Every structure is written in C-alpha cells, then in structure tokens.
C-alpha cells in the first residue's frame, strides 16, 4: 500500500486475544502481505471498556478497521476430515457447532453458543474475523510440517490445543485443560463419585449394639501448625511447587492425549517422534527435557505470539 493510499484510504486491523487475566491487543495498517503493527497494549480483562474505548477511537479515525480475535472458548476442536459425516463419526453435534474446513484437509469447529458469548462479551465491538487456536497453530506449524506426523501444542495458561500434523493431513486434535490443582480435584471427584466396591458397605449390616464413636486418634493429634517460615522464601517455594504441579498436570494430560491418539481406532495411527510446543505462557526448558526423558521424543519449545500469526491470516483474508 502506497503512502498516499495509506493516508487517504487506510485499511487497519485491531487484533487481540485473551491470555489469562489480560487482553493483549495490537493495532496496525494492513499492508499487502503483512500488518504494520503501530501499537500494542496489554489491558486487564476486567477493564474491557478500555479496549472498547480504544476500538471506538480507532474506528472514528479509521472507518475501515477490521477486528480479529482468537477464540478462547473451551468447547472447540478440530477434526481430521471435512464434511458432515466427520461430525457423526467423531461424536460432535453438528447443529450446535460452527465449522470451517481448512485446506480441504481438516475442520475446525467451535460451539455456536460460546462463539456468541465471546462476541457478547465484547458488546459494542463488530468482529470481522474470529480465529480458532487450531487455525493459528496450523498456520504457525506449516513451515515445520514433515512427511511423518509431529505433535504440535499451542499452550496457554490452563489450556493447550494439541494437534498431530503432517504435511499431508491432520491426524488428531484435542483441547487439553490443564488444572493447577488437578490432584486435589481428582481426589474430590473420586469421593463424590460412586463408592468403590471394596470400600462400600451396607449400614444395616452393622451391629446395632456396636457404638459408632469418633476416631479418637484425630483428637490426639492436637492442634497442627505448619511452620510458615520466612514469607518471601516460602512464597517462592510455593510458586515453584505450583509450577511443578502444573507442569506435571500438563504432562499427564499430554500423555493421556497421546495414548488416546494411539488407541482410538477412529483416528489413523502413526508413531510420533517430535513434539513442538508453541508457548504463550512461561513454560521452561525443564518441561521439554522432561518430555524427552519420559516420552523419548524429540521436543522443542517455541515462543508463540498469536498477534503475529493473526496478522498473517488477516492479510490473507482481507489483504487480497
């Protein structure tokens, strides 16, 4: 776009995505093959009005502004085939989802209701483009695709979008929800679920004469106090522990997903040798080493900026 055209008829884009408790947004001119990013802002997700104000300010100056966002909804996914039969085959209710066939190879879908919720969350903003994280992952992975399938993960705090991709096709895709306190939750869930057969008993079978007394040993324990120690050090330790737990949970989820890919007959099977993690959070190289040691896979960690990938896609969508 020439300078004159940029001055008189500018085509601009506002790109944003939600990351944890903040919204990362960028504004720039849409050029022929790229977006010339002029400004980036990080806005608290509670303070959405700031983003809306910025949007209105931009629209007032540049009426030809396109708004693009990455959908952060949970109920979305990808299927390795296009067309309605794929929904039936993989147990997705086609009436409740909005789908998009990519490269005539695979299909990204999202819950219609959640997509509307997302739009409603930013009421007052007219969305032009909504991208699935799988589409962003695919776009970013394209240069790395080979003949043999590789595992590609787009990691955001608390969630990871996993896809097994090769140059020819998509093999498998899944959304991994990574909980920070998964162990505790699991324990809680186990308690709330149906009683385990070995432990279940019939209360009527108890001898009526036998008294049911409280466990006195608990009383013996007395008042238990954890030694908190010095504040900052303990906080550091705590956060390190949380991170470790999170990484373990993530690893477990990943392992389960890979196992599902290997064992689910609806998907084609192939051995995965490479893992590439596109990280939007703060995963460390320890996690990569852990994967390499535990899963015997070649792993790599790459920083991922959705704004850059969205910029490429926006250019392809509207820059033509």
């Amino acid at each position: 776009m020439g300078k004159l055209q940029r001055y008189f008829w500018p085509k601009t884009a506002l790109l944003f995505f939600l990351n944890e408790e903040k919204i990362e947004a960028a504004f720039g001119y849409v050029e022929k093959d790229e977006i010339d990013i002029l400004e980036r802002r990080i806005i608290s997700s509670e303070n959405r009005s700031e983003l809306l104000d910025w949007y209105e300010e931009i629209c007032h100056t540049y009426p030809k502004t396109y708004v693009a966002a990455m959908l952060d909804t949970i109920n979305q996914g990808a299927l390795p085939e296009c067309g309605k039969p794929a929904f039936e085959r993989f147990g997705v209710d086609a009436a409740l989802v909005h789908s998009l066939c990519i490269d005539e190879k695979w299909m990204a879908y999202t819950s219609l209701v959640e997509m509307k919720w997302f739009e409603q969350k930013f009421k007052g903003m007219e969305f032009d483009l909504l991208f699935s994280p799988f589409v962003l992952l695919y776009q970013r992975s394209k240069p790395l695709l080979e003949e043999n399938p590789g595992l590609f993960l787009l990691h955001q705090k608390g969630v990871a979008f996993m896809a097994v991709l090769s140059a020819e096709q998509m093999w498998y895709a899944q959304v991994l929800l990574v909980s920070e306190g998964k162990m505790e939750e699991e324990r809680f869930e186990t308690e709330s679920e149906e009683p385990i057969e070995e432990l279940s008993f019939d209360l009527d079978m108890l001898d009526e004469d036998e008294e049911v007394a409280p466990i006195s040993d608990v009383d013996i324990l007395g008042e238990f106090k954890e030694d908190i120690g010095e504040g900052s050090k303990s906080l550091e330790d705590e956060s390190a522990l949380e991170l470790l737990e999170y990484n373990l949970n993530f690893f477990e989820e990943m392992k389960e997903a890979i196992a599902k890919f290997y064992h689910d007959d609806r998907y084609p099977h192939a051995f995965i040798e490479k893992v590439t993690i596109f990280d939007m959070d703060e995963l460390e190289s320890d996690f990569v080493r852990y994967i390499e040691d535990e899963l015997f896979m070649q792993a790599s960690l790459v920083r991922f900026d959705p704004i850059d990938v969205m910029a490429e896609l926006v250019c392809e969508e509207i820059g033509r």
Partner: protein
Amino acid sequence: MRFSFIHPKPKPKLDQESRILVIFLAITLLLIFGFSTFVLLKKRSMESDIVTMKQETRQFRGKSERFKKEIARIERLAQKYETINTNNTLLKESIQNLFDLVPDQITLTKAILDKEGLVLYGVTPSKDVYNYLLLAPLKSVFQRNVTTFYPLENGWWRFVSVNEGSIETGSEVEE
C-alpha cells in the same frame, strides 16, 4: 481460502468528515463544471450573435448610407423648393410690380415671362407715354430693353418690348 469462522463485514470507505469533504468537493466541481458549461454555451451563443449583429450592422450601415443619401436628396429638394418658392414669390411680386408699373393708358395684349427675360405685347397711345411711363421702370429692372413700335390706323402704336437681364424666373426643379 478462509481461516476465520466469520466473514469480514463490509466497511465504509470514508469516515464522516471525509464524506462531507468529498460531497463538498463534488458539489464544487459540479458548480465549476456547470458554470464552465454555461460560460461555454454563452460564448458560443454570443459568437453567433456577434456574427448576426455584424451582418445586421452591415445592413444598417447600408441602410444608413441610403437614408443619408435620401436625406441629402430631400434636403436638396427642400432647398430647391425653398429657392423656387422664394423665386416664385419674388416673381409673383415682380409680376405684381410689373402690372403695377403698367400705366392705365397702355394696354397689354400679351406678356411672356421666361428665363431670358420679359416680352410684352401691347398698345400705347403714343411712344412717349410708353417711354415715360413704362420703359423707365422696365429699365430699372432689366439690363437690356429693346422695344419695337408698329403704328395702328387710329394713331396708336402697337409695341413689342423685349427685356433681358436680371429677373430670375421660377423654373422646374432639377433633381
């Protein structure tokens, strides 16, 4: 190829201010164009008017020349008329005077008044009556006087007096 779940919405090409500016410019251009067209048409119309008016001017100039000539002719005629009228008046007065000059004793039988002069025919009782009573005033009027007498049986004299000289007579108007 599509990557987004939704299609981009059509965007307005211009913002409110630019739209007003464009409308203003369009109106200005329209006015300029309209005015230019008007001026052009007016110029063409005036050019054709100029040609027509030149022709009319030529015609009027010709007519004017003709009228001038006519006026000159009429003025000349009027002048002539005036002269003739004056001459005739003078002649009338001269004739009246001439007749007043003729004494009672002399009887005129014929008088011819023309450019050349006055020719009188008549009868006089004597030559002296004629010479004293008629010839004297005729001499004061005409430069040359020639009188011829013919005796009559009764002793009177018939005379023919030819007077030439200054009296101008009224004649036809020369155009």
